[in-house]
């Protein structure tokens, strides 16, 4: 057992680092900057540790914890996106005086929770990871505690999320009751036989997971929380937990529920279609960019779920490619928001963007690239994400799903175009401060260049993702 501890090395390293920087934070005053930089360093080191760990499948602790290429890929994706979220939002945090030393530490704790989620091979470990992550997110949502909206969003998220966690836990206990095991592999074996009760359990677990990735009809919290939370936290919400949530969803479909795919496919198809349509229609009326991005993220999860709904490996792969490009697009979109500063205040309304193409041409063109990419117009990265998903969907001959999904992209193109219209066609109203926010600019630059050059070698991601399901 002790010999195998190196399998847990990333988690152990992360845990010890969190404890140490927590101590630093407690004993050194005004240590936000130090802790912030240390956290970035820790994330970087963890990435290096994971990159150096072998990719063969290893299961420890009575096979409740797996380390394989699948979990490693997601851990790296989670870490990289967290690194970008943290650093691009640094100036925002300083401006908004969110400089509590707990801020980066809680983010690290939530990352730790996600690590256990994506690595779990056991319901109990999975649930513990999920709760560790969720608890950190509640705190993060309300981190601007003097701000009414932020506190409100924290409470809202807490109440609803606790409810969904309850449902999920109920599902887990049902699953244990009907199969007699908490281990994914054993559950899968048990579900090979006739087992109606387990189908109930599966529904409850799906509900819980759909809540975590904010899929319709469990999306109600998303717009409010996105709007209320500080932008730096919103960008974290929009990206990282979704990656982890999708990873877990795929894992559940891949291992424990693989034998009852007929049952869950119907549900996921429904959730996917509902998310795509709601994400497209509800965003049209939004005036706040963060709310709009919330609805757009609901729609995007719908597309990723369309890949999952196929129930085959190629579909899961396309969903993973989709979520990775989604991460790039959203990081870029939120980084743009950090530059919309006027007299020390951050603007969040679409109307504030009016005519920025004249005074801020580079920012405008970045918005253009990111928004067209979100709309899925070729030759930008977002198109390929959709292309891979729909290729997998059509391969399974789910034509209705493909056509509805693509029609939803046309509807959603409307509101992305509306923002572009505000930026390019309208007369300029505000000119924003020329802030020297190098970090946000860098992350916009990286995101745009990935989206713009993705067409040169579109299979770069799928080549990596292909290897995840080899074992």
């Amino acid at each position, binding site marked *: 057992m002790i010999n195998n501890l190196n399998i847990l090395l990333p988690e152990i390293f992360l845990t010890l680092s969190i404890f140490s920087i927590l101590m630093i934070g407690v004993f050194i005053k005004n240590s936000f900057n130090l802790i912030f930089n240390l956290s970035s360093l820790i994330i970087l080191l963890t990435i290096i540790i994971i990159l150096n760990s072998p990719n063969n499948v290893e299961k420890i602790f009575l096979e409740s914890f797996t380390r394989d290429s699948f979990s490693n890929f997601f851990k790296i994706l989670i870490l990289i996106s967290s690194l970008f979220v943290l650093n691009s939002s640094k100036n925002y945090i300083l401006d908004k005086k969110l400089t509590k030393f707990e801020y980066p530490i809680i983010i690290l704790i939530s990352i730790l929770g996600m690590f256990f989620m994506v690595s779990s091979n056991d319901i109990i470990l999975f649930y513990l990871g999920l709760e560790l992550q969720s608890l950190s997110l509640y705190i993060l949502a309300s981190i601007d505690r003097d701000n009414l909206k932020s506190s409100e969003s924290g409470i809202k998220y807490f109440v609803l999320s606790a409810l969904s966690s309850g449902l999920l836990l109920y599902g887990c206990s049902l699953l244990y009751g009907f199969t007699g095991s908490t281990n994914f592999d054993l559950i899968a074996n048990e579900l090979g036989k006739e087992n109606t009760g387990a189908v109930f359990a599966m529904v409850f677990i799906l509900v819980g997971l759909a809540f975590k990735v904010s899929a319709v009809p469990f999306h109600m919290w998303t717009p409010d929380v996105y709007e209320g939370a500080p932008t730096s936290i919103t960008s974290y919400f929009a990206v990282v937990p979704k990656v982890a949530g999708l990873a877990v969803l795929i894992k559940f479909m891949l291992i424990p529920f693989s034998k009852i795919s007929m049952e869950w496919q119907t549900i996921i198809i429904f959730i996917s279609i509902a998310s795509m349509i709601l994400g497209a229609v509800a965003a049209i009326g939004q005036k706040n960019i963060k709310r709009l991005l919330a609805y757009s993220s609901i729609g995007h999860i719908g597309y990723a779920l369309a890949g999952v709904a196929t129930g085959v490996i190629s579909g899961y792969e396309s969903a993973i490619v989709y979520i990775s490009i989604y991460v790039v697009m959203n990081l870029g979109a939120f980084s743009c928001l950090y530059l919309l500063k006027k007299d020390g205040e951050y603007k969040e309304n679409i109307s504030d963007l009016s005519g920025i193409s004249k005074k801020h041409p580079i920012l405008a063109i970045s918005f253009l690239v990111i928004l067209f990419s979100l709309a899925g117009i*070729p030759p930008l990265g977002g198109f390929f994400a959709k292309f891979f998903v729909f290729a997998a969907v059509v391969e399974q001959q789910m034509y209705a799903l493909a056509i509805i999904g693509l029609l939803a992209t046309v509807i959603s193109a*409307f509101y992305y*175009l509306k923002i572009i219209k505000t930026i390019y066609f309208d007369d300029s109203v505000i000119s924003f401060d020329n802030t020297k926010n190098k970090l946000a600019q860098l992350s916009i630059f990286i995101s745009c260049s990935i989206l713009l050059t993705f*067409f040169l070698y*579109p*299979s770069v991601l*799928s080549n990596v993702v292909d290897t995840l399901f080899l074992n």
Partner: protein
Amino acid sequence: MDFPILSTLIFLPLVSSLFIFISRGQKNNNSAIYISLFSSLATFILSLFVWYSMDYTSADFQFLEEQSWINDFIKFKLGIDGISILFIVLTALITPICIISCINSVKDRVKEFLIAILILETFMIGVFCSLDLVIFYLFFEAGLIPMFLIIGVWGGPRRVYSAFKFFLFTLLGSVLMLVAIIAIYWITGTTDVTQIYEIKIPKEYQNLLWLAFFSSFAVKTPMWPVHTWLPDAHVEAPTAGSVILAAILLKMAGYGFLRFSLPMFPLASEFFTPLIFTLSIIAIIYTSLVALMQEDMKKLIAYSSVAHMGYVTLGIFTFTKQGIEGSVFQMISHGLISAALFLCVGVVYDRLHSRMISTYGGLVNYLPKYSFLFIVFALAGLGLPGTSGFLGEFLVLTGTFQKNYLVAMLATFGVVLGAAYMLWLTKRVIFGVTKNDQIKNLKDVNKSEMIMLGILAVLVIFFGFYPVPLMETLNVSVDNLINNYETAVQIESLN
């Protein structure tokens, strides 16, 4: 051919637009105009070279380029035949003309405008070069982005509405094509057009796939009843935008029918011929009548474009040599004529800022050179023998008579209507009494306008008298297209 000449053609404008982007900081627009003019002319010369050096006694695709792109899935494949080279040359010809036209008409954000035009040229040439469905879709759709911005940023008062309408209509049509493309991949195992030609898609799939492609091409052509975006887009777009829209973007759909619908789904094409005939006839007659009623010059020309594109679709689906050659010829000639007519409107619009017919009248007394050119293009537009407009319509009608008398007669009626609205337009704008005093102070066409319109006028008349270079290029490719179609239909009738 080792040198990737088609890729050079495609990406040369894109690279030069990058240069303009870098030189954005300068106050003076001259360098940007020179860069874009130089690169678009270089593209044009290169395209002429390709035209000259290709072998049009062979129906095979030439200048093939192949590169693995998405692993085991899609190849980046380019190649041209006798049909596509004409469209490439047309694109490469129209783009420098647009760039010259924007010297006079675009005052605001010139560099951005040039960047948009050059990027659009890249996508347009890409459409005509691609031999892979996904690459085709990529270029086809990507063209929406620059065109959306051209209409929206530099357009007229209702530009936002028009830009949205243009974008959403086209996108809605195209997404169904995307589903069809993916479906073709799973049916045949490839998206390589030349391979699909040989594999032959099973009959049971053809109708649905054809409809999906049709939904995209019908919007782009545009066919009645989904043509409504076109008048709006034309009216609001700046001159250069209208020119590109009319001269090239509309041709993508006709080209799409020839390259994809006909050879890939021959049985479905035969099955749906009555549908196309009906829609084309409605387009020819109805939109000609609508054009008669217009008070806005650009709108009138826009509706006439719909009518002319009706001949194109009619000709393609006759499956006769005359019909198809006539369609291609009609597309090229309409590309020249409609571009010239929009430029003519642009010339007076730059001076008086009005597109209304009622503003003008009696121009012939004050702008003699302009009036001469306008009349040349108007006559070409109504299909006067001796201009390129005549030959296309004539061939299409000849082809149609072989298939269906009634349709051909109705279509011939459209020619009369075409003469009616064009002549009436000329009468009201060029001749008549000058009521507007401002007209008396107008300057005649200047040097750059003379160059653009002169080139087009020479070409329109030249191809009217001597269409051989175009026909020779087309000949073998069209023969091959019809042979393949007829074999497919025969095999089916034997079963």
